[in-house]
């Protein structure tokens, strides 16, 4: 079966936890995790709902392969309406929490309403109850996890929680599990905080059983693992260098957005790269990187475990930060570094630790800080307003403002609202490097044209994980396309978006797609899950999920006008590198994309498209 067939419905207003059977007919159409939970969500929630009101819901969902030995089979997703964007929000995390939720016997947990006072949900297999969290409110993610493990007298309990950012209304607060794995984007943690839900603690001893054909599944999983091991990216690049392997590559391509996208190459890229993380520091003779690490079931192990330089100004006399902890991934290193022009690796790591400790998205935070630094350089924001001199490149400003955002004090409160609101407030809305209110990740749309279209049309606002055409345009996976041209990108983006929808709904990590195509995932799903899971069916499921999310956003009030990039990327050509002189060709690609999708000129799926997808 792959599914546990059980849904836990938690009414935070009434304080009740009820078990209900999973709708298996829907599971056949939407698979699990992202797809299935979004289907539940759009069926139950008004698209116009205020994201931070009690009427919004929040769903934590596993996929059919979560908790199985399928490589990377430990994922879970959080689905809600996002406060940063007002669009569907769906954030995916690894670590061990998702598998534990599955082992406890639950496909998903639906939170509805709002608790009067802070609570956390405790799950021990079938037993689920809301418990008082007064003693946890105001605590960081790291403190919360420690306190829960101690009070449960169970070091094996797995915890996801929000930090102070989620309590304080930082609009891009995330939910952190296992200390440093994050459902990071779109403010899913903000919604959790708005419901007075501090944490979920889960212990599962039932395991994941009921695989349709265990023998075939073990063979399919083993075959697919071999594909990952034999691939240069997933077998060598990612375990050795992590996603940070991209820093120098993307910089060379002239697609590393720098200083709020003013530039496309960063002179200090090498100093914040994977290579730099492995070099011995002069201060203590040790490398920044301690080791790599895997999430549950993952045979790639791209995770970084780092130790900060104890002599760095950010952590002098702060031994709490000296231990090994989650290190910089590419997107975080870019956002906290190049986006602000900061080339101090240790300062980036400190800001990254703060993001993990208090639960907020380093991409949106770093990019918002980049916008604030530009406003400072333009003389619109002053030292007095910000609380510190904040020119591009200031590691001191990065460190101090990360702390202020975590604590919800001073100018940190303004940074916590994201770049769209910040730039609008100070009369420069065009300086927000975002789509639908969510900040760009680490690829410039002028140097990698397909990503511009992927950002503009992503259902959760600017995002690299909804259609990662970098794989094709940069790495040649599955085929190499020219990053500087717009031709063919509409179809490419659609194909990536639809396939990713399936991966995100299966319980596995999207990083497998550096090596896997749907053809590698399909035999695993078909052997594990009840019913027949053919390539044709999966392709349809992926497209169905994408269009379902689109319909929700359209009903929420988004239109074709929102599928756009900031003027800077359309009018200010790249200054250096291979893309020099180019702007984004989004206006050319967008109509081609709508056509490829079977949508009308307003970005609305046609009747024929909806009928074909069973929507």
């Amino acid at each position, binding site marked *: 079966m792959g599914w546990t067939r059980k849904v836990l419905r938690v009414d935070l207003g009434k304080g009740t936890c009820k078990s209900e059977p999973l709708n298996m007919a829907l599971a056949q159409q939407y698979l699990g995790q992202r797809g299935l939970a979004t289907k539940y969500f759009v069926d139950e929630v008004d698209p116009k709902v205020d994201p931070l009101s009690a009427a919004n819901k929040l769903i934590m969902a596993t996929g059919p392969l979560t908790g199985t030995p399928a490589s990377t089979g430990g994922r879970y997703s959080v689905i809600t309406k996002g406060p940063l964007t007002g669009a569907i929000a769906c954030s995916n995390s690894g670590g061990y929490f998702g598998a534990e939720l599955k082992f406890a016997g639950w496909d998903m947990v639906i939170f509805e309403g709002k608790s009067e006072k802070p609570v956390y949900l405790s799950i021990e297999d079938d037993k689920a109850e809301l418990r008082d969290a007064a003693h946890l409110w105001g605590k960081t993610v790291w403190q919360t996890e420690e306190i829960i493990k101690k009070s449960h007298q169970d070091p094996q309990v797995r915890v996801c929680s929000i930090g102070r950012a989620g309590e304080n209304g930082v609009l891009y607060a995330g939910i952190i599990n296992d200390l440093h794995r994050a459902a990071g984007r779109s403010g899913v943690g903000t919604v959790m905080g708005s419901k007075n839900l501090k944490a979920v603690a889960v212990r599962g001893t039932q395991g*994941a059983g009921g695989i349709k054909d*265990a023998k075939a599944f073990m063979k399919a999983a083993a075959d697919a693992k071999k594909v990952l091991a034999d691939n240069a990216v997933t077998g060598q690049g990612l375990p050795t260098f992590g996603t940070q392997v991209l820093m120098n590559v993307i910089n060379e391509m002239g697609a590393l957005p720098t200083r709020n996208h003013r530039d496309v190459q960063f002179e200090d890229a090498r100093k914040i790269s994977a290579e730099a993380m492995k070099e011995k520091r002069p201060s203590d003779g040790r490398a920044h990187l301690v080791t790599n690490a895997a999430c549950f079931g993952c045979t790639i192990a791209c*995770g970084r*475990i780092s130790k900060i330089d104890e002599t760095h100004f950010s952590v002098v006399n702060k031994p709490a930060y000296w231990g*090994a902890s989650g290190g910089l991934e590419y997107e975080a290193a870019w956002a906290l570094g190049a986006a602000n022009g900061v080339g101090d690796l240790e300062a980036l790591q400190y800001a990254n630790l703060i993001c993990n400790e208090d639960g907020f998205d380093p991409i949106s935070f770093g990019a918002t800080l980049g916008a604030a630094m530009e406003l400072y350089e333009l003389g619109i924001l002053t030292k007095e307003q910000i609380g510190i001199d904040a020119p591009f490149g200031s590691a001191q400003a990065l460190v101090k403002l990360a702390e202020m955002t975590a604590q919800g004090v001073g100018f940190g409160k303004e940074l916590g609202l994201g770049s769209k609101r910040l730039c609008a407030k100070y009369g420069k809305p065009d300086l927000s490097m975002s789509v639908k209110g969510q900040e760009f990740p680490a690829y410039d749309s002028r140097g990698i044209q397909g990503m511009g279209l992927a950002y503009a049309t992503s259902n959760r606002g600017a995002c690299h994980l909804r259609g990662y055409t970098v794989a094709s345009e940069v790495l040649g996976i599955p085929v190499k396309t020219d990053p500087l041209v717009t031709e063919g990108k509409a179809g490419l983006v659609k194909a990536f978006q639809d396939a990713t929808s399936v991966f995100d709904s299966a319980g596995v990590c999207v990083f497998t797609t550096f090596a896997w195509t749907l053809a590698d995932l399909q035999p695993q799903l078909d052997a594990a899950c009840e019913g027949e899971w053919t390539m044709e069916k999966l392709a349809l499921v992926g497209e169905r999920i994408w269009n379902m999310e689109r319909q929700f956003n359209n009903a929420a009030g988004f239109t074709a006008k929102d599928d756009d990039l900031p003027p800077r990327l359309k009018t200010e050509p790249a200054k250096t590198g291979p893309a020099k002189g180019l702007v984004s060709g989004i206006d050319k690609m967008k109509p081609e994309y709508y056509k490829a999708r079977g949508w009308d000129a307003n970005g609305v799926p046609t009747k024929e498209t909806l009928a074909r997808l069973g929507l």
Partner: protein
Amino acid sequence: MQKSLHIDPHKCTGCLQCEMACSFENYGVFNISKSRIKVFNFEEAGRKVPYTCTQCAEAWCLHACPVEAIKVDAATGAKVVHEATCVGCKVCTIACPFGTVNYVADTGKVQKCDLCGGDPACVSACPTGAITYVDSDWTGLDKMRSWAGKTDTQPRAG
């Protein structure tokens, strides 16, 4: 030749594929709470360490058992719990200095690593070679080779 599980924590990434393989081999379900090998995560140090029974030559668990439910498998040398005989008294869990024999509430018996009859599932499942099954007399061979490789410390001529 007798073989032993050989664990190299430096190679462990913490993926828990070994724990899933163990539970599947013994219970037909992917359930790490029933695994006989456990991976410990020393977060602050950035270390992950798989740990299981070392199959002591003088096995405390075997000697402590009042009903002789733990016997030596002649082929593998593993100390194996015979469930039909085990009465679930848990004395072996006290006797084991390493904590690698544990009680299973569901079955009312104890469980420990039995080397899967000579083909340990954890070994096949480990993606990084952190767990291997090697000649019992030469578990130090890899370490010796690694250090041997460092003996040539003289700068090469030219």
